[in-house]
């Protein structure tokens, strides 16, 4: 099995307000996959479809090589899932929540759970109702990790947590990956957080998957370039022109945002009688923002 998650032409509609349109998504086994998108773009809906909590209108879902919903029980045994809005029992102590959770998972690693509890600075005897948001966040990650899952599904795992807790949580996840080789699927709108850990990215906007690429290719493929004497039409360009801007800087100089950039494409500018002045690298967040901006309906593109 080379794909931990495989979605084919997945469609889901909620009235006229929102829909997921023919999502095709492939998460390689063993990868750390960043599922990016602004709030309301369909990330959580996708995760809920994956876990069988809602049913698609059409399309197919395979997780760990098995069909959803047909083989859900076998799938869920091997998936550590941290939902965006978790359901916990406030009257439980941390220890009780742990024991309760453990009873559902045959691969539960109690020894490791205990170690993580200490490492993350959690008090086993504290009631969940008395815990801070950060402590609940750490506890939920602990529950998912101690299951020893083959796939970790983390839906906005660090949203609303302070930077110290965010670091603790991510380093516990990375430690788990080092040891078990689990696949990690993280959805987040905190783009910079994913920049150093993900090797794949999928970008969602408005119920569509805009891009799915290895991280390095995504980051290096989108550039800001400065062109002197730019042609009126860029139809023949070997890259995709996402946007162009004349207002910035001296006359006859334009700033372009291009996608699918590779070094040999410099030749193109000679051919059209323009001069390429500068190629500027964008980081993940800038690439993400430019991609979204160019895909929004206001940009001549179909909506």
């Amino acid at each position: 099995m080379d794909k931990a998650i495989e979605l084919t032409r997945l469609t889901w509609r909620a009235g006229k307000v929102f829909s997921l349109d023919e999502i095709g998504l492939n998460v390689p086994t063993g990868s750390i996959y960043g599922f990016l998108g602004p709030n309301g773009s369909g990330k959580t809906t996708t995760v809920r479809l994956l876990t069988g909590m809602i049913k698609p209108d059409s399309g197919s879902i395979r997780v760990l090589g098995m069909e959803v919903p047909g083989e859900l029980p076998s799938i869920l045994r091997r998936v550590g899932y941290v939902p965006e809005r978790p359901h916990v029992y406030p009257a439980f102590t941390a220890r009780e929540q742990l024991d309760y959770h453990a009873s559902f998972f045959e691969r539960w690693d109690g020894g490791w759970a205990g170690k993580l509890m200490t490492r993350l600075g959690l008090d086993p005897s504290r009631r969940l109702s008395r815990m801070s948001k950060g402590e609940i966040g750490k506890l939920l990650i602990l529950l998912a990790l101690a299951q020893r899952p083959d796939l970790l599904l983390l839906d906005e795992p660090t949203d609303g947590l302070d930077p110290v807790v965010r670091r603790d949580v991510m380093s516990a996840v990375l430690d788990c990956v080092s040891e078990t080789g689990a696949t990690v699927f993280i959805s987040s709108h905190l783009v910079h957080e994913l920049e150093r850990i993900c090797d794949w990215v999928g970008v969602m906007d408005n119920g569509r998957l805009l891009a799915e690429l290895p991280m390095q290719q995504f980051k290096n493929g989108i550039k800001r370039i400065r062109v002197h004497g730019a042609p009126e039409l860029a139809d023949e360009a070997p890259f995709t022109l996402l946007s162009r801007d004349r207002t910035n800087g001296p006359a006859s100089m334009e700033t372009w945002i291009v996608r699918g950039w590779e070094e040999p494409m410099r030749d193109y500018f000679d051919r059209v009688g323009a001069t390429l002045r500068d190629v500027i690298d964008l980081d993940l967040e800038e690439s993400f923002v430019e991609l979204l901006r160019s895909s929004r309906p206001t940009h001549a593109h179909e909506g």
Partner: protein
Amino acid sequence: MFHDLDPRSPTPLYEQIAARVRVAIASGELTPGETLPSMRQLAQRLRVNPATVVQAYRDLANDGFVETRHGQGTFVKEVPGRVREEERRAHALSLVNRLLQDAARLGIGTDELVRAMETATGAEIRG
């Protein structure tokens, strides 16, 4: 050694990590026989994908800078002086290239840079 890793850079993190180790070996900061942190420790410390560290260590081993002994860890190898010197030269050149690129962006010419270098170091670069 790894304090200035830049996840925003277009240079992949595994290349950055490998380069830091090569420079540390070339400059004598790391000596032959010394142990590198385990891949798991380093991934956690740098908060990077464990696969990134695995790739960096693999490249370092292929280039003859370290060797990984199964179950024992990764060790710095004895690197010939010639290779170390070459590594330092390559690193110096990449520092200069970065400077040149930034300068070009600001419209600062090579002559101005050389003069600035002379002012900063107090040494005469061009006779």
